[in-house]
């Protein structure tokens, strides 16, 4: 199972290169310069957030409502939508991947490639129909109304990732299960799901991250300030801050805070996120 090996690629041993001193200096120099450039916007945001008013700015924006939006509430909204999204993607994705991997049926491969075809659908191109469908089904201003269109865009990736893993499951295990007279439901639950625990964790971490990144669907579907998500709040709270230096510092403090949920997920689930992405090989 070559795929297992790739999961911890970042921890594996380095290439056996013997570089000269000057090469080493060049390599470190380049990495440090690019590293600083990459960290600069984040460092800049933190600096600006305490430039006028100091660390108290954070407390101020946490306790204030900004255009009717409270930052702790946005964390809760983002978390609810992200978990719904992750749940939908993992359950529906695992069921479908099982069918494609274990149940022989006519037209299976064409259908599978048909499912993968939608890997590339940009969210903006289904904006109009999502708006229409959400109106018809009464999904405006609901968390699930955002999680559903997010999930449909993630599902092709989920099927790809999980089918690849399920195809690696040795068929002898399944034959044994058949002798036990287990049904597909039994094999799915007792063989496929436990053996896919790793990829499912990766997928869940990725789904949470992608949902936290999503601005488009919340901004279109959630109009009530009480339902605003963290990514969406970046825009909605902008006009709540005046042009004074103190207010500007507070705006930066708010921006930094809005990044915290995503940052927490990224740092704590970094390994799951990266191994999920590299196993899938597509999608941004």
């Amino acid at each position, binding site marked *: 199972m*070559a795929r297992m090996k*790739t999961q911890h*690629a970042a921890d594996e041993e*380095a*290439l056996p*290169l013997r570089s*000269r001193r000057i*090469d080493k200096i060049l390599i470190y120099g*380049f*990495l440090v310069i*690019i*590293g600083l450039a*990459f*960290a600069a*916007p*984040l460092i*800049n945001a933190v600096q*600006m957030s305490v430039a006028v008013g100091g660390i108290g700015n954070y407390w101020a924006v946490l306790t204030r409502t900004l255009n009717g939006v409270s930052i702790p509430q946005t964390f809760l909204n983002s978390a609810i939508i992200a978990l719904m999204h992750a749940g939908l993607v993992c359950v529906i994705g695992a*069921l*479908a991947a099982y*069918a494609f991997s274990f*149940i*022989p*049926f006519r037209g299976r491969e064409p259908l599978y490639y048909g*499912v*993968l*075809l939608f*890997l*590339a*659908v*940009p*969210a*903006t*191109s*289904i904006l*109009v*129909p999502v708006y*229409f*469908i959400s109106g018809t089904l009464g999904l405006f201003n609901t968390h699930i109304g955002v999680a559903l269109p997010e*999930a*449909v865009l993630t*599902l092709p990736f989920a099927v790809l990732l999980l089918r690849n893993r399920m195809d690696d499951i040795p068929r002898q295990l399944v034959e044994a299960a*058949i002798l036990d*007279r287990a049904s*597909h439901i039994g094999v*799915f639950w007792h063989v496929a799901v436990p053996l896919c625990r790793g990829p499912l964790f990766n997928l869940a971490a990725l789904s949470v991250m992608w949902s936290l*990144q*999503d601005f*488009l669907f919340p901004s279109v579907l959630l109009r009530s300030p009480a339902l605003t998500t963290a*990514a969406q709040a*970046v825009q909605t709270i902008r006009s709540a801050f005046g042009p004074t230096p103190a207010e500007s510092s507070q705006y930066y403090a708010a921006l930094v805070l*809005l*990044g915290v949920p*995503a940052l927490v997920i990224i740092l704590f689930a970094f390994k799951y996120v990266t191994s999920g*992405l*590299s196993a899938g*090989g*597509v*999608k*941004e």
Partner: protein
Amino acid sequence: MTTTETSTLVTRAGERRQRRSPARGVRGRSPFRGGWYVVLFLGPLLLFYGVYFLYSFGILGMVSTERVGLTFRNAVDVGMQNFVLVLEDPTFQRSLINTIVFGLFSVLVALTLGFILAMMLASGVRMRRLFYTVFLLPSLIPMSLFATVFSRMLETRDGAINDGLRNLGLGFLAQDWLGDPTAAYVAIGILLTYTIGLPIMYYTTDVAQVNASIVESATLDGASVWQIYRIMLFPLLRTTHITVILSVILGSFRAFDIIYFSTGGQPGGRTDITGTYIYKATLGLDRVGYAAAASIIVLIIALIISVVQIIVRRKAS
């Protein structure tokens, strides 16, 4: 689940097999042939696809022939007029060209800077995890946030970038970043450079699979690090380049947040991409039929890229 129940549900192929080896073989007794299980396992996915993709495309097709707002009421049938208008609109043409140009630029950056950074990280440097995380962070945090902070740094009068240039004595390089078309392109180029985390990750993953002994023998033969990167590893990672190119091009059609939160398509739609164009037509101008026509054109392009990707993938494996 009893055997009699399932045997009525097996597919015809299964029945034929059963008749040939009557209730003796494993397969004959098992429910392991198609039937309603397919519906059970694939049903939820197909329901999702049915509503949010197929039904969606139906709506797009219908709405694209109408003049209508977001209320979807009082629609006026205009036939193919929306498609003609969209295709003739210079801003749409430009947004399409921009999407492709930005995509190609990202590919170029990924294949050069992304590649070299990943190779350097694989060359036994200290604090590798820290560097790796720093390079990946801008691609993983919400783009709405990153691009907002970045565009504040671009403020002409008091932004960090112009301030920094002035402090370095390079004040002549200070620009009206978001007002001047050329400067806005440069700004987007820099911003896109920040999003090469994924290519770095693909390269890092795949370079770890490279056979260490061939690198070792090249080192013993006196090859320098740079030669090994360029002559040995770059061609060796050919399949990774393909993954990188495809994923970056697909990503460029989804770069909505990057543009929306940095230049917002300004000045005057010069830096719009298809995503921001559709968004503005839908929510800004309330020209929904028109936006639907643009969406269909973009979808066709995205699906073509998808087909190419699937073909390439199948060939690779």
